[in-house]
């Protein structure tokens, strides 16, 4: 065990390398850029390739091609850059190609994009939301494992803090057991055999041209596989202090760590509060949120956005308790989501307001910069 003080971006890059990633492509964008820098430095030393693509579209395209050969591959950006990649991400998912995608987001307003998928069609990505650098080191490795297990892209939903905070971490490879054989991967060798492989979002079986693709059949099969993935992978979640909690606070990512700390401090002061911290956003820990809400008086949702995860919370709570929004947009002048509300005292005061029955602002409204 060697603990090293590392910037989050570097720890994430190191985690990708120990997970077996041997191809990375990206385009510089704050706060994702350092991940690209670290991969450019690390990958060649491990026999991998890092491409500084000329655009986000080309970055995801290069990762798509590399991944199609069975090489563990990843790309990433910020939400804005991922917006550019959406068509490709949809099609990569339909083609069942494993890929890890990083969103080093500016705040948490990309929750819809991450969990609903910003692309077209009926597809899902598994989504993991680390709260800090040590958790990110584990979740990044899990992402590679899940993406090969399900032959589906997996998104790691980070943010500015995660990218730029230094923490001491031990990037040890995690053994997830044997991975499925990559019989779908392309390398040319099945050419001329009469059964040359096809990797396509339109179908997975070669047909004579007078038969052609059957998209109806293929999309239905994909839908079955997607449902199996979302229902078959248990959600990852951390809960705390739920015993006797009158207010249950739900938060993910970096703010999740702040909320956890605030709740812990409030409990130490005898206040009946608890938390649920989704770690996987897809699949969402619906059962845990539902169970916590059944015994609580009110559910509060804290997120750095106008309220996106709150939709999934409301669906899980399903009217068992009122759901109050205590988050909001919080950022500095550059809009990077490093805002004054990421402050344990601010969060605590908002939870206290809910506890005494006076939530600041109505549920779902945009909060100001100060509580």
């Amino acid at each position: 065990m060697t603990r090293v003080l590392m910037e989050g971006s570097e720890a994430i890059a190191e985690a990708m390398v120990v997970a077996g990633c041997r191809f990375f492509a990206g385009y510089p964008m704050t706060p994702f850029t350092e991940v690209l820098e670290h991969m450019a430095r690390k990958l060649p030393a491990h026999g991998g390739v890092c491409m500084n693509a000329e655009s986000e579209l080309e970055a995801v395209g290069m990762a798509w091609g590399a991944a199609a050969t069975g090489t563990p591959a990843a790309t990433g950006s910020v939400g804005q850059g991922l917006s550019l990649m959406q068509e490709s991400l949809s099609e990569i998912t339909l083609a069942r190609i494993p890929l890890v995608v990083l969103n080093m987001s500016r705040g948490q307003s990309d929750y819809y994009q991450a969990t609903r998928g910003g692309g077209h069609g009926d597809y899902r990505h598994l989504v993991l939301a680390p709260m800090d650098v040590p958790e990110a080191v584990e979740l990044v490795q899990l992402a590679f494992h899940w993406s090969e297990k399900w032959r589906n892209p997996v998104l790691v939903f980070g943010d500015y803090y995660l990218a730029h905070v230094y923490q001491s971490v031990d990037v040890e490879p995690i053994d997830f057991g044997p991975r499925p054989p990559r019989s779908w991967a392309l390398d040319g060798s099945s050419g001329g055999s009469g059964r040359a492989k096809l990797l396509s979002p339109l179908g997975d079986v070669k047909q004579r041209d007078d038969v052609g693709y059957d998209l109806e059949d293929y999309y239905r099969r994909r839908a079955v596989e997607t449902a199996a993935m979302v229902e078959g992978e248990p959600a990852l979640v951390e809960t705390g202090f739920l015993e006797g909690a009158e207010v249950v606070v739900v938060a993910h990512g970096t703010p999740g760590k702040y909320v956890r700390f605030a709740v812990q401090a409030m409990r130490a002061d005898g206040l009946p509060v608890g938390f649920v911290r989704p770690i996987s956003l897809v699949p969402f820990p619906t059962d845990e949120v539902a169970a916590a809400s059944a015994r609580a008086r009110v559910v509060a949702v804290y997120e750095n956005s106008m309220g996106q995860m709150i939709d999934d919370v409301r669906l899980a709570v399903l009217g068992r308790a009122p759901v109050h929004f205590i988050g909001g947009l919080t950022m500095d002048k550059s809009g990077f989501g490093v805002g004054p509300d990421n402050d344990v005292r601010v969060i605590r005061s908002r939870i206290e307001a809910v506890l005494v029955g006076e939530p600041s602002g109505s549920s779902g409204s945009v909060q100001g910069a100060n509580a």
Partner: protein
Amino acid sequence: MTADHRAMVIPTQQPPEEPASLVDDFTPELIDVGAHQLCPGCGEPVAMRSVLEAVADLDAIQRAIAVFGIGCYTAFSNNLDCEVLQALHGRAPSLATGIKRVKPDTLAFTIQGDGDMVNEGLQEVIHAAARGENITCFMLNNGVFGETGGHLTATTVLGQRTKNTLEGRNAKDHGYPIRLSTLLAQLDGATYVARAAVNSAGNVAKAKRMIKRALEVQLRGEGFSFVEILTMCPTGWFIETQEAPDYLTDNLAAVHAIGVVKDQRA
């Protein structure tokens, strides 16, 4: 021809009984033909066949990966006995780049139309050429978006009638065509850039030679290679199939001139 010509018809259902040798079976083994659905007189199957013949001639079928764009030719992604990675409209060059960077021993080439490559994907092919990416890109250029019914692309020539330029493309309303091969030849990373056509037997033979040279550039690791193959599209040109070869010569080849545009092979 009189009605009596039928007495002269040579039987052609079986190989000849007289001693003879097969000169060529132009049904390539690498295409699972079941009478493909492309239009009568379409040049794209001829171009596809030429590419696959070149791959087979170079003995490279067991390392070939074809990256397909989206167009009428996408039908072939489904029935080639060659490994295929299906890309999005315009995006094949970046996929081929990813393949080649992690598997440098493969023969990675793209099959794209003019709409795919010069409209949607112009930056992709330009960047791949500028990087000297060791891949080969093939553009099947018929001056229209064929699959959607025959619409204007960035290579449509002035005067050409398409569904959205019914009076003929004019510079004032629709701008000028892009001569992509000419553009790519200016990039230092492009080693071999050529324009071919499949509208006559002679041109088809020439096309095959250019295609083979381009693939050899990749096999020898000499940088980016590109062949633009002008193909007939009588449906998209609103003309009879028999008129298409001359239409290609008189209109498309007049702007996108056939020949080797750049050759910096070692």
